[in-house]
């Protein structure tokens, strides 16, 4: 009897770990020329559109100086370059415009007043009709302690507002709420500010005897001598009609008038008279005569216009109307290119029958899908990073002469560039998952474009009813475009917080989470179907 020795191949046993699958998928991606070209195209289209927008958005009177062939109506005397917007203590652009009835206060002290009335009036016309009495929810009047009368200087203030009750506000972005309800002669509001070193504390009261603290803030570096007194201001009244195909914004200046009495002070104040100043009078959009104050005995009537608030940029708003988001406008086009590549990364396997070889070589189908997702996600991330960085850096370079660009601090730019790359990467994985589910390129790409790209495209022109775009940008994967929102939305500033101005209904990371949730569900479904179905 001869013992039969089982046959052993001399060939080394093949390794089929995850690393090998990853390497195999990377090789597939790298060696298809069209896919690599598609990714490069995504970068070029996104960055190219950004540069075009930056160039076309530039103030025509500036571009004509650089000898550009295309010229708009030249505005003679319009300032080229950045107009000087004041910056607040936090570095943000602010609006610091109000009527100030003031006296110097040396050292610690306090001021208390009673407000008996606040009324708003519109200026200018709305659709050809003169604007009369008007309800301005964020008209403000009250008492303020401020580091001088320079625009953008530190302050803390207690105020009554047109529609938001008593507020304490400080350094433009700070806001705390006090007594609710409107002010009237029947229900007056008492306000008090006390200064102790750098700390300013605000109180309110309905009767002048029972006081409640509204807030207490430290204004770093507040000098010993400050300006303190009464103020009134009233922001523009914006009506924005968003009907399909037509978006019209009307911004009408308004003035508000407040009546103060029972003015009492503690601390070192000069006994002399009060000084009335219109802060930032040169940019006030109402006639100089329509603001001011008059005093009858101990009763003050102060009328002002403007706002003490962070400046809001973007289309149809007060501030510079070009934001960093506009340079990234081409993201949708780059996303289409990336989605096409991601879709074909899977559907080409089915079309060529390669999927049978792939699954024979690595029978663990979930791992194949994971490897594909990692490869396409990484490639898309790199492409998205290059596209966003290119669009922002070159776009800013091109538009730096334009008068209407909203400057952003570099951490914001970095967050938006990285966020855009993450958006593109996760969207590519979503496209891959959908392609795995439906297996046909045409259907897959249509689904991807409809759920990710179209909601973003619809929100770009101010035209679709705000309710519809709001809803789309909350529930569809396009919610992740919120990553491109440059500036925070302020509750206490009325503005056009719409996508075309760079404001999204969800917070940046919440929006991204919506996209990630969609992608997770799609990937799980794709993995399930890939396992269950014949290839």
């Amino acid at each position, binding site marked *: 009897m001869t013992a039969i020795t089982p046959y052993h191949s001399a060939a080394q046993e093949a390794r089929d770990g995850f690393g090998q699958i990853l390497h195999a998928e990377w090789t597939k991606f790298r060696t298809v020329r*069209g896919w690599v070209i598609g990714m490069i195209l995504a970068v070029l289209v996104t960055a190219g559109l950004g540069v075009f927008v930056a160039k076309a958005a530039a103030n025509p009177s500036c571009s004509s100086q650089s000898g550009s062939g295309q010229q708009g109506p030249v505005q003679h005397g319009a300032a080229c370059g950045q107009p000087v917007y004041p910056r607040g203590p936090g570095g943000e652009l602010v609006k610091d415009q109000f009527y100030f009835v003031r006296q110097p206060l040396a050292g610690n002290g306090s001021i208390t007043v009673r407000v008996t009335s606040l009324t708003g009036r519109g200026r200018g016309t709305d659709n050809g009709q003169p604007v009369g009495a008007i309800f301005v929810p964020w008209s403000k009047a009250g008492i303020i302690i401020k580091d001088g009368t320079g625009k953008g200087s530190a302050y803390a203030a207690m105020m009554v507002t047109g529609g938001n009750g008593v507020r304490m506000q400080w350094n433009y972005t700070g806001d705390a709420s006090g007594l609710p309800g409107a002010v009237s002669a029947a229900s007056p509001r008492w306000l008090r500010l006390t200064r102790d070193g750098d700390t300013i504390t605000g109180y309110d009261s309905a009767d002048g005897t029972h006081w409640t603290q509204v807030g207490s803030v430290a204004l770093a570096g507040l000098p010993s001598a400050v300006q303190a007194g009464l103020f009134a201001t009233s922001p523009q009244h914006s009506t924005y009609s968003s*009907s*399909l*195909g037509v978006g019209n914004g009307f911004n009408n200046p308004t003035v508000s008038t407040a009546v103060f009495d029972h003015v009492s002070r503690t601390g070192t104040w000069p006994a002399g008279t009060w000084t009335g100043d219109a802060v930032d009078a040169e940019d006030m959009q109402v006639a100089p005569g329509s603001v001011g104050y008059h005093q009858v005995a101990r009763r003050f009537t102060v009328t002002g216009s403007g706002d003490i608030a962070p400046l809001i940029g973007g289309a149809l708003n007060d501030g510079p109307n070009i934001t960093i988001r506009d340079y990234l406008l081409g993201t949708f086009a780059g996303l*289409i290119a990336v989605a096409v590549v991601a879709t074909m990364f899977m559907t080409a396997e089915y079309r060529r029958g390669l999927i049978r070889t792939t699954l024979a070589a690595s029978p663990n189908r979930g791992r194949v899908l994971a490897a594909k997702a990692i490869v396409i996600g990484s490639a898309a991330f790199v492409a998205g990073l290059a596209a966003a960085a290119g669009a922002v850096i070159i776009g800013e370079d091109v538009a730096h002469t334009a008068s*209407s660009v909203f400057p952003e601090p570099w951490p914001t730019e970095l967050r938006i560039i990285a966020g855009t790359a993450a958006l593109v990467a996760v969207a590519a994985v979503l496209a891959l998952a959908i392609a795995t589910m439906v297996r046909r390129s045409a259907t897959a790409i249509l689904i991807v474009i409809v759920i990710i790209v179209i909601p973003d*495209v619809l929100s770009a022109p101010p035209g679709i009813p705000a309710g519809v775009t709001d809803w789309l940008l909350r529930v569809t994967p396009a919610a992740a475009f919120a990553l491109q929102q440059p500036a925070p939305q302020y509750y206490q500033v009325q503005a056009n917080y719409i996508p075309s101005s760079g404001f999204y209904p969800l917070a940046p990371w919440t929006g991204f989470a919506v996209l990630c949730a969609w992608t997770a569900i799609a990937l799980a479904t794709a993995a399930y179907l890939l396992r269950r179905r014949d290839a």
Partner: protein
Amino acid sequence: MTLSAAGLSRARCGSQTLHAEWTKLRTVASTGWLLLGTIALTVAVSATADAAATCPSGGCQADPAKLSLTGVQAGQAIVAVIAVLAVSGEYSTGMIRITLTAMPRRLTVLAAKATLVAGLVLAAGSVAVPASVLAGRLILPGHGFTLADGYPPLTSPPPLSSGDGPVLRAAIGSVLYLVLIALLSLGVATAVRESAVAIGLVLGLLYVFPVVTSVVGNQHWQRHLEQIGPMTAGLYIQATANLSSLPLTPWEGLGVLALWAAGALIIGALIFRFRDA
């Protein structure tokens, strides 16, 4: 009386090609569903836009005809898919080689495909567009679109009565718009063959102009971009109010889209004629 075999085949070549292409289109399950989808999406989006529209107290800014035809902007995406699949579907299965063996005259094949796709989209559009106008007529008066609210009057008292000249032009034009989008997509698909690439290119081309125009501050550039964009210019055909403020007249706008479609078809035809299948 006899016809030579060659003469007979030449005479019947066109109709036979048409018949063969029709059989292919008819028997693919997706064609019917996509056509139904076009109608459903167009009408649904139009009705949603009508329902979401409001007239602010200052008066309506929206053009009711344009508003009630909003769905065309969504329906065009599916129309593009129908047209792309008519061509690239053959490439993905290798069917194209059989087609061209049986019918070697490539331009005739392309012409037959274009005729049939245009006909199908014309039929779908002829259902979707009147239904959208009807939906607008039912919904819009409930949202303040009446003469009493100071809406600029159309030529006859009830807004959106289909007897209106401009509204009729907007409706017929919208159907033609969809047909031209189909032809544009067919040309692009013939040129690039791959369905995903073709759909990406067509939708990118359509949407890039309105998106870029929305942020361009320079009025001249804005006007030029709107004039040359296939979607922006083509949709002027839906305008019934403020015609004088449009950069082009409605029919000129549709003409721009027709030029795009013709250009895409010519490039597609040239590539199709001279490239290996």
